[in-house]
């Protein structure tokens, strides 16, 4: 019905405008719309081959998760390497790692919205989706770790025949509320942002099915000025609500550790340095995913070197906060004069897991200093490699915090050594597969760049008015 009014996607040359601009030259409202929706409307056969390859690999890895989880349900947590001093093991390491990765999405979409950073526009949708999938991965681990995962709903306060309730003084119960609120609010924020773009997809869809599916989720959005007015108010308020939320979530996650009296966990610096670490790892993951996606789908004119460089700078900045956190942890261990604290830190650096501490310092602090060099920040390959290094580093940080603090506590008689089993690795790698599978599906089937916000940037720059009056006006009505 509405299909013949649109010209074929514009064949505008893909030009990366360099580190100063957020949109390539020559773009109009119509061309950005065609370009972003073109990724979704292109025939399946035209999808880049490398997308299929990436999808197949991720999908195969996801099967590992299904197998590992099934075997866990059959046999119980004994298939993991957890032992009595190290009862948390990989499950909590991975939980904290994933939830931290999610935080960059909220930071980009909410905090940068409030700070009016226009470079957030091309990457916020993508990062919000990353948040959703990362939080899904994170939420799996504590539940799988429960021992009887099918009773996970006991964590929620609900009237029950046992007449017991969760303990609201426990950080673990705070965590349940924090993570479930975070997942819900991230979904709300993501969906509200998507609605105008889904309306665009509905109007540009060529087939009945596409029109129906996009039309259903677009809720009948028609771009009315009154609607936009309420929409913008709701969106900015959601940004304002998500900003303290993201800080609170990782603070609460750090309380899981900091409220315990264990040396290595019981420190007041944990909340700020956990939040900084979360943003650090999240930006690393944004870069890890964004750089290939922009290449596969030729988005260099919308996700420009400006975006890459800005993310690299945020990574450098938050990395330095994390470095300060490590330094203060070590200093306080020494300065406290507490024999257990001192032993813990010495053991962390030189004990059986000393290799992980050395790797941590290398990956999280030493190597990322290369980002001070502008030519490295402007080199996509090196930024991508460094983002991988930081991803590994931030995983090691959680490994160091969880394992080295637990394995040798106050009484030498209760010391132990933790080895992850193949099932630990399968579960972890499986969640990476799940996460990537969802991301690749998302970039292929939903607008991965917020179309209306890119139009808004064009609008504020005074561009986008390439709309020509059509020579033959369509007849009234249809």
């Amino acid at each position, binding site marked *: 019905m*509405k299909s013949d*009014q*649109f010209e074929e996607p514009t064949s505008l040359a893909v030009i990366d405008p360099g580190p100063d601009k957020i949109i390539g030259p020559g773009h*109009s*409202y*119509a061309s950005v*719309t065609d370009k972003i929706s073109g990724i979704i409307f292109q025939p399946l056969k035209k999808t880049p081959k490398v997308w299929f390859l990436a999808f197949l690999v991720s999908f195969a890895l996801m099967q590992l998760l299904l197998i590992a989880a099934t075997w866990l349900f059959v046999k119980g947590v004994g298939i993991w390497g957890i032992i009595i001093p190290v009862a948390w093991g990989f499950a909590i390491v991975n939980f904290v790692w994933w939830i931290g990765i999610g935080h960059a999405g909220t930071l980009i979409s909410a905090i940068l919205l409030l700070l009016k950073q226009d470079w957030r526009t091309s990457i916020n949708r993508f990062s919000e989706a990353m948040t959703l999938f990362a939080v899904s991965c994170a939420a799996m681990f504590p539940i799988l770790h429960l021992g009887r995962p099918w009773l996970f709903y006991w964590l929620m*306060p609900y009237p029950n025949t046992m*007449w017991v*309730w969760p*303990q*609201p*003084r426990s*950080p673990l119960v*705070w965590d349940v509320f*924090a993570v479930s*609120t975070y997942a*819900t*609010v991230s979904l*709300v924020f993501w969906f*509200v942002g998507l609605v105008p773009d889904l309306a*665009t997809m509905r*109007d*540009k869809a060529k087939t009945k099915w596409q029109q129906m599916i996009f*039309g*259903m989720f677009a*809720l*009948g*959005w*028609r*771009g*009315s*000025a*009154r609607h*936009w*007015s*309420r*929409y913008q*108010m*709701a969106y900015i*308020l*959601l940004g304002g*609500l998500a900003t303290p*939320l993201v800080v*609170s979530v990782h603070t609460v996650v750090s*309380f899981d550790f900091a409220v315990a009296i264990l040396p290595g966990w019981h420190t007041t610096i944990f909340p700020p340095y956990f939040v900084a670490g979360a943003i650090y790892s999240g930006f690393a993951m944004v870069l890890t995913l964004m750089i290939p996606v922009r290449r596969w789908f030729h988005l260099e004119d919308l996700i420009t070197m400006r975006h890459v460089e800005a993310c690299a700078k945020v990574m450098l900045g938050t990395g330095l906060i994390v470095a300060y956190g490590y330094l203060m942890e070590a200093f306080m261990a020494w300065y406290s004069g507490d024999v257990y604290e001192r032993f813990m830190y010495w053991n962390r650096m030189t004990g059986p897991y000393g290799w992980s501490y050395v790797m941590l310092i290398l990956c999280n602090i030493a190597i990322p200093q290369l980002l001070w060099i502008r030519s490295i920040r402007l080199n996509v390959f090196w930024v991508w490699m460094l983002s991988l290094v930081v991803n590994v580093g931030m995983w090691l940080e959680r490994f160091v915090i969880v394992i080295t603090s637990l394995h040798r506590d106050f009484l030498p008689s209760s010391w132990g050594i933790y080895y992850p089993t193949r099932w630990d690795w399968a579960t972890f790698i499986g969640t990476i597969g799940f996460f990537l599978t969802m991301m690749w599906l998302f970039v292929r089937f939903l607008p991965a760049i917020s179309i*209306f*916000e890119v*139009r*808004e940037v064009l*609008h504020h720059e005074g561009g986008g008015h*390439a*709309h020509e*009056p*059509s020579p033959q*006006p*369509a007849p*009234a*009505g*249809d």
Partner: protein
Amino acid sequence: MHMSRARSPRRPGTKVMATYWEQRGLYGVMAEFADSDQLLHAARRAYAAGYRRMDAYSPMPVDGLAEAIGFRRNFVSPVVLLGGLLGGCGGFGLMYWISVIAYPFNVAGRPMNSWPAYIPITFECTVLLASLSAMIGMFAMNGLPMPYHPVFNVAKFARASTDGFFLCIEADDPKFDREGAKVFLNELNPIEVTEVEK
């Protein structure tokens, strides 16, 4: 507000006209403009000319456009505030009720109402309910979801989500007159003026 207007254009005082246009099946007269500035200008002119029942459509938010067509009362923030207050009180109340009334449990001699420990959950509940009311409130006040709307009958309106800028004067405006509205809109330098069927 908007939804009820679209479904039943009858308003007191305009009954005769509304019935006439209802029989004719006319929702309004729509003009397309080349860009947001012209749309904004046209909306201001239409409001100055005395039209009140109208709406402007654009592919992205345009500053001042809602005000230009006479939109003043944006109730999203009070709804979010109410949701937040409800969430905060509800969250704290739930924690208090659990640990003081339903399941009193002595943890290391702390008072039953050890309120600082309830703050994280109180905060999360505040944010949760405020966010949900932002989404639900915004869509509800916009009258969405609403799969059918007369403006979609205009074929070119599909551009409203890409690069089209439209102003629609609705038939239930007291000042509305089919030809008069068309003449008026044609003076505003539109790309095209069309009638919108119901």
